[in-house]
């Protein structure tokens, strides 16, 4: 426990060097405070988003939004709102996403802001799909693909949504899958390949090929793990658990659900965490562990119903096994 002050001479020398370096160097003029603060908040929010810290990211995006509002910067507000909506989508909070996107759409239309149309439509499509509005989602994603010039990443994401919709209504899956695979060739991101594998697994599961579904999901999981992409890891485990449960492999299903829950709790993901918890409870019940299943259902009620959710409490209750 030794604490020693750095020598003052060294500090002064460092200061001297820094002053001389500053004198020798050139720098771009710093932006005004009103611009610098929200931009910093956006940058830090983006960093948190990339680190899968979505709650922190949302807080920073909200701060940026407040600052942009304070200087009546519509473009900044739209960016912050779309970022907030993206975080809400990742956390499965489609109602919140819809609220942010409606505000963003209003601003874009009011001030005729260029450059947001395609991505905004895509996010509205994704929000509608998450909310179960297949018609709305199809219309929005169709509108994205109908645009003359569209970012290929936006187009690819729209094709994913259309393929998911085709799979759900069991019509046009093959065509949607082919279009998706073609668009995917130009995309270098491994996580999009993993997403396609998960869609393939879903298609296999719907045809009763549980082993094929499990194999595809295992590959997808490996990609997500290599990319350290938490939402993908958690979603893959949940889908693996569902397949294992359908196969009657309850121990394996339980393991996948538990691993998914650990990731969801780290992400502070309430919606997906609750669905994983419900899955785990059903597996425990099927295993005959009714007491544990009851405990998990109580925790599920808390997770879904608590106004001021304490993640610490969720963690403690979950780990009490």
């Amino acid at each position, binding site marked *: 426990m030794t604490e020693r*002050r750095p020598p003052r001479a060294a500090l002064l020398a460092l200061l001297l060097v*820094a002053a001389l370096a500053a004198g020798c*160097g050139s720098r771009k003029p*710093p932006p005004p405070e009103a611009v610098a603060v929200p931009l910093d908040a956006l940058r830090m929010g983006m960093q948190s988003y990339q680190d899968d810290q979505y709650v922190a990211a949302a807080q920073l995006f909200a701060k940026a939004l407040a600052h942009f509002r304070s200087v009546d910067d519509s473009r900044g507000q739209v960016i912050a709102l779309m970022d907030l909506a993206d*975080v809400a989508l990742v956390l*499965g909070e489609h109602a919140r996403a819809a609220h942010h996107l409606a505000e963003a759409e209003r601003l874009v239309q009011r001030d005729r802001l260029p450059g947001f149309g395609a991505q905004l439509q895509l996010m509205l499509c994704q929000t509608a799909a998450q909310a179960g509005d297949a018609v709305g989602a199809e219309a929005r994603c169709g509108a994205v693909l109908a645009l003359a010039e569209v970012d290929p990443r936006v187009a690819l994401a729209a094709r994913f*949504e259309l393929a998911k919709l085709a799979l759900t209504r069991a019509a046009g899956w093959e065509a949607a899958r082919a279009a998706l695979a073609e668009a995917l060739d130009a995309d270098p991101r491994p996580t999009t390949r993993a*997403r396609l594998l998960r869609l393939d697994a879903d298609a296999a599961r719907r045809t009763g090929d549980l082993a094929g579904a499990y194999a595809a999901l295992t590959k997808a999981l490996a990609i997500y793990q290599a990319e350290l992409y938490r939402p993908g890891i958690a979603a893959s485990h949940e889908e693996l658990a569902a397949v294992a449960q359908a196969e009657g492999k309850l121990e394996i299903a339980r393991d996948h659900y538990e691993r998914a829950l650990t990731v969801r709790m780290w992400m502070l993901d309430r919606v997906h965490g609750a669905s994983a918890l419900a899955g785990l409870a059903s597996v425990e019940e099927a295993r005959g562990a009714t007491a544990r299943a009851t405990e998990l259902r109580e925790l599920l009620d808390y997770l879904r119903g608590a106004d001021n959710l304490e993640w610490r409490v969720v963690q403690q209750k979950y780990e009490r096994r």
Partner: protein
Amino acid sequence: MSTPSSKVHYIHRMNYSTLERLVGAFVIGALFLLVFLFVYSREAQTMFAEKFTIIAYMKNAQSITTDTKVQISGIDVGAVEEIDLGGDNLIRVEIELLERFHSLVREDSRASLSKLSMIGKATIEISAGNTDLPLIPDGGIIAVDEPVSIDQIMADVLPALRNTQEALARVNQLAQAVDPKEVQRTVHNVATTVANVEKITTMMAAGRGGLGQMVADRGVEQDLAATIKSLAGTLAQTEARMRELAPVFKDLQAVSSEARVASKNLPQLIDETHRLVGQLNTTVGTVNYEMQQLPDLILKTRQLMEQSDRTLRALQSTWPISQSVVQPPDAELVEPKPTHD
């Protein structure tokens, strides 16, 4: 009308060596300024001064850091140099003092923590020692007066409060033993007696004959008889009350003897309580003052942090630091991607 050459900026009209000289003058000027600031800065004034070290062992080094100032008679004479764990689980605090104040640090000098240490603004105060005693040598150990904690103060005050509570309970017991109705009746009888006596004295004052005549007077006789009767009744009731009160008096005796025993320690206890309350008042007063300063302090801290942030940002974009600092992503919008839910 100006010639073409006069439209050129003056700096382009200077030859190269003049320009170099100008830059050189600026650089040298800046260096001179730095040296000047260095020489006259407060830190630099004591940087090369001769110093000596003393050691203090404390049970609780709360709020002491390596920047904690050390004062003698209100003058800054040094700072804490090092904090370490000593023997017997005591905290070893190494204090570096300016040599020119060494003559004040004698064997009877004591180090104590300022009262503000409780709220995190610690200063070590060293009492100036007796000049007849030898100096504490370099590396020597100084005795420490540890400040009284709030818990200790409360622990000292609590027994006194408990005694007071017990005494009040006894008094309450006494008050409950007396029946208010009986007291009311007795008071009423006494009032009647007093009224009768007043009547007699009024008649005497009216000059109606002598005392024998007054006694012979039938009215007076009746009044007197009634008075005596009432007095007798009052006395009888008083006797009965006294008999009832006998056990209470016995209790009272016991209480007073206990109180006598307890009161032996009372002056000392009161004295101690006085001292503690005084200390508490001083501490609370200081804390109050500090609390009032707190919002201002927070505001200033925030301003300072914002300024530091701006300075750091400027530093980050300055060569050569800008080369090694990884800039955060400039992307404002999250990358479009399929949902992975």
